[in-house]
């Protein structure tokens, strides 16, 4: 069969295009994240006792873990906007890194483990608030990634959407670390996982529909 009519139409519609550039995508996301972090500090949301906080091992555990997860998943997500890149293997490595980070955190600050102690440590009312704030802080990078994903050509939309969600969620949690009043590793592991998990799931199920091409 000949596709002449379609080819004619596409040829008539042809205009010069500006090529997608990896570096530009990285810069856009970096600017969004930097502006968000700057505004966060400028608005005075950071904890007032920062000098004491930086001496806590859990602070560095959170900062390093979340920065690592955010960087890796963000880089993999941007790479997977190219149709030839499959994010599957990257997701498996990322899952391993997340598991290592969680285990490491639980090891550095094991507390009492009785049922009452665990319920008290989890402090669900504050935990829900923390998760909500993390989700809100994840939105700017999530939107930025979403726009770039729509402009790109991911051929594994679900995998890419999951990576985008993880990157945005980890960044939101990273920013929130500077305001979080809790240092208990169990609390952090559970509620940060809840917040990040919700963002990742929303991204995983919503973005593939928006990025259909």
């Amino acid at each position, binding site marked *: *069969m000949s*596709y002449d009519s*379609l*080819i*004619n139409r*596409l*040829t*008539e*519609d*042809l*205009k*010069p*295009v*500006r*090529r*997608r550039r990896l570096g530009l995508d990285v810069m856009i996301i970096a600017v969004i994240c930097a502006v968000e972090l700057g505004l966060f500090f400028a608005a005075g949301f950071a904890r007032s006792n920062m000098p004491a906080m930086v001496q806590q091992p859990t602070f560095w555990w959170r900062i390093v873990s979340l920065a690592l997860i955010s960087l890796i998943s963000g880089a993999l997500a941007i790479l997977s*906007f*190219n*149709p*030839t890149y499959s994010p599957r293997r990257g997701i498996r490595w990322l899952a391993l890194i997340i598991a290592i980070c969680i285990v490491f955190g639980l090891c550095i600050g094991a507390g009492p483990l009785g049922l009452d102690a665990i319920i008290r440590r989890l402090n669900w009312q504050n935990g829900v608030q923390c998760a909500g704030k993390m989700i809100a802080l994840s939105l700017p990078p999530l939107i930025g990634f979403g726009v770039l994903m729509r402009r*790109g*050509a991911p*051929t594994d939309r679900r995998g890419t959407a999951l990576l985008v969600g993880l990157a945005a969620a980890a960044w939101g949690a990273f920013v929130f670390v500077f305001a979080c009043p809790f240092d208990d590793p169990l609390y952090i592991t559970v509620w940060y996982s809840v917040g990040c998990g919700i963002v990742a799931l929303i991204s995983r199920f919503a973005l593939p529909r928006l990025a259909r*091409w």
Partner: protein
Amino acid sequence: MPVPAYLAWARASWGGKRLTESDWRALMVAAQAGNAGVYRRLLTEVGAWLQRYYYRRLPAAMVDDAVQEVLLALHEKRHTYDPSQPFGPWLAAIARYKWIDRLRVMKAASMEELSDDMSVLDHGEAVQSARSLEVLLDRLKPAQAEVIRLVKLQGLSIEEAAARTGQTISLVKVNIHRGLGRLTALVQDQTDEL
């Protein structure tokens, strides 16, 4: 004004030579720059390649739709092609993506389940007749049986049967005539025995 390399190549190769990877790349770069003539050539070549790709992977009725869908996708996403990378894998990734997408749609599409007690025609009689005919043909001379199979069963012309068997046209006609006569006699003998 000097002619760009890709345009010089495209003009020189319009005669229908087989494209190499660097040719594909040059065409795509030209298309990204907005060269309509080269783009038409690229889409035509890609369309032919996609047809071959999908004929091996999809039901024939779906091939044209799939090819058109990829051509549209290529048009929409042409800015994502990086000229420092080969064009073939980029195109193949898009074609594969659209193929998997189509398979998902096929899987999700509702299928009407056939009931166990649905009535169907009984093919037993036809099978039995075919078997009886084979037995009768085996009792003919091989040259007669062969031309009867080709002309009366497979629908070839006398000339085609002659070319295939190496017999002359008149010999084919004679063998068919004698073979059919012999078959009639065999059937009559069997009927008389019953």
